[in-house]
């Protein structure tokens, strides 16, 4: 305040006006984002609610998705999304974390400087291009392995895993990089091997960042539409339980919405059911995010000195 007083009342007033302007611009930007999210959710609810009112829950969660005969069982779609996503997670998480550990801990710095931007560029490949590659290259390969068709849940998982990898690698590597050198030095100076240092000190210390990396990667996988639509075969069947379940065609929730939205009559039950599926998708992502922030939160309070 003293400097402002020295500069005279006019200057002080201008400063205060500037502060007010910036503060409110920032506030407006913040509030509008939240408002837009809320509006989207309200719209989803408005269009989708009839699904849950008009279709008995037992029928909604039954196994037949056949809108032409007014059979709206979304179970096959749920299972399809689940299968493809779980497959993608099983592939992408270990692979992504391993690559991040290699880049962050073992790779010489010139290689890291070279690979990291490259990996980040991969994140920018349009999903339709990946879907195309999956269709043309991956699907025939998988069919040659003995599946009845190359367009399967597994094909979708592979493509999704590939899409999630750059996110997982890049953010995990940042998290590992942020672990203070003092921790590594401390562990090495006790006589821990390099791997013991990473496994017992660096990874636990980076845990919250790693969780975020995995969640963002999975988030991308579960919401992805176009690539999955192209390579999973789009059969709204529930695959038979067993080892072969990943090698059968499935249809995901996102692909269903994308494929059928164009041909439904607005306001019909079919139309609102597609929105209903959107609501369920929204809830699933919301649940994943909540679990993630819970895990990160536990880690945070531990850092501040809470009980283990």
């Amino acid at each position: 305040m003293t400097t402002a007083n020295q500069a005279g009342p006019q200057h002080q007033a201008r400063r205060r006006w500037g502060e007010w302007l910036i503060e409110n611009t920032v506030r407006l930007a913040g509030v509008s984002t939240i408002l837009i999210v809320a509006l989207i959710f309200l719209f989803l609810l408005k269009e989708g609610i009839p699904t849950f009112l008009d279709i008995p829950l037992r029928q909604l969660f039954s196994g037949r998705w056949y809108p032409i005969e007014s059979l709206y069982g979304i179970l096959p779609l749920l299972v399809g999304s689940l299968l493809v996503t779980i497959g993608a997670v099983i592939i992408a998480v270990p692979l992504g974390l391993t690559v991040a550990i290699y880049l962050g801990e073992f790779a010489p710095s010139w290689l890291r400087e070279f690979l990291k931007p490259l990996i980040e560029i991969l994140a920018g490949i349009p999903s339709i291009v990946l879907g195309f590659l999956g269709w043309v290259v991956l699907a025939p390969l998988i069919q040659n392995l003995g599946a009845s068709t190359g367009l399967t849940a597994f094909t979708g998982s592979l493509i999704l895993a590939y899409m999630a990898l750059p996110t997982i690698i890049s953010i995990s590597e940042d998290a590992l990089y942020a672990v203070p050198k003092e921790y590594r030095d401390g562990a090495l100076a006790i006589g821990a091997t390099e791997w013991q240092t990473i496994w017992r000190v660096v990874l636990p210390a980076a845990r919250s960042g790693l969780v975020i990396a995995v969640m963002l990667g999975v988030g991308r996988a579960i919401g992805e539409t176009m690539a999955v639509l192209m390579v999973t075969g789009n059969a709204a069947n529930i695959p038979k339980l067993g080892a072969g379940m990943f090698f059968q065609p499935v249809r995901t929730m996102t692909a269903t919405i994308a494929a059928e939205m164009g041909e439904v009559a607005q306001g019909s039950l079919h139309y609102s059911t597609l929105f209903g599926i959107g609501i369920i998708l929204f809830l699933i992502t919301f649940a994943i995010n909540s679990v993630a922030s819970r895990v990160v939160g536990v880690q945070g309070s531990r850092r501040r000195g809470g009980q283990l």
Partner: protein
Amino acid sequence: MNKIEVRNFSFFYGDFRALKNLNLPIRKNKITALIGPSGCGKSTFLRSLNRMNDTISGTRAEGEMLMDGKNIYDPDVDVVELRQRVGMVFQRPNPFPQSIFDNVAFGPRVLSTASNGDLDQIVQESLERAALWNDVKHRLTDSAFALNPGQQQRLCIARAIAVKPEVILMDEPASALDPVATLKIEELMRVLAVDYTIVVVTHNMQQAARVSHFTGFFWLGELVEFGVTSDLFSNPQKELTESYITGRRG
């Protein structure tokens, strides 16, 4: 008796020669203090003793450091095993973001030297030796970050002695601490010297005079003078040493 014998030892960061042809003994079960201005190479020397400098790329050592007669820079030396024998305490307390118990148990666990029953025993003993047991015995599962800096540093000392090293290196162990915590660390060093060989780097000449048996004075990567602490402080042989310890240089 000499625990470590340094012979014609030089150390390079790339082309820069940080240590020049050092020769000195580290006496067993004594405290050896290394003093000198910032950047004189005393920390580099300390980190050479457990080869922590190996983690920096582009470094190179020449000459010998004989520990119990064996050169620790020989190609057949297992660095991991060496570091277990030569423990280290750093300038800033660096406990892991884990519980107090897990911090001390870290060493025995990675070296798998203890069964679980023994582990409790080792943790307790190490904390007792580090004069921390009474402060933490009822909250071993608390995070190490709940301790104050002085306690954290003693925790790091407990963590270092839990693997039963032979030598303990201390890199300005009290420089981040207040005077009371500093005195506690110095007291602890005297007690530990009964069983361990201690090498301590310090900026604080009173500290060197108070705790150490031997003192080496470093200047621009060279060892200017080495001797019994009381002699070196009361009757320095070199003019440079005298002007540094009386505060006229440095």
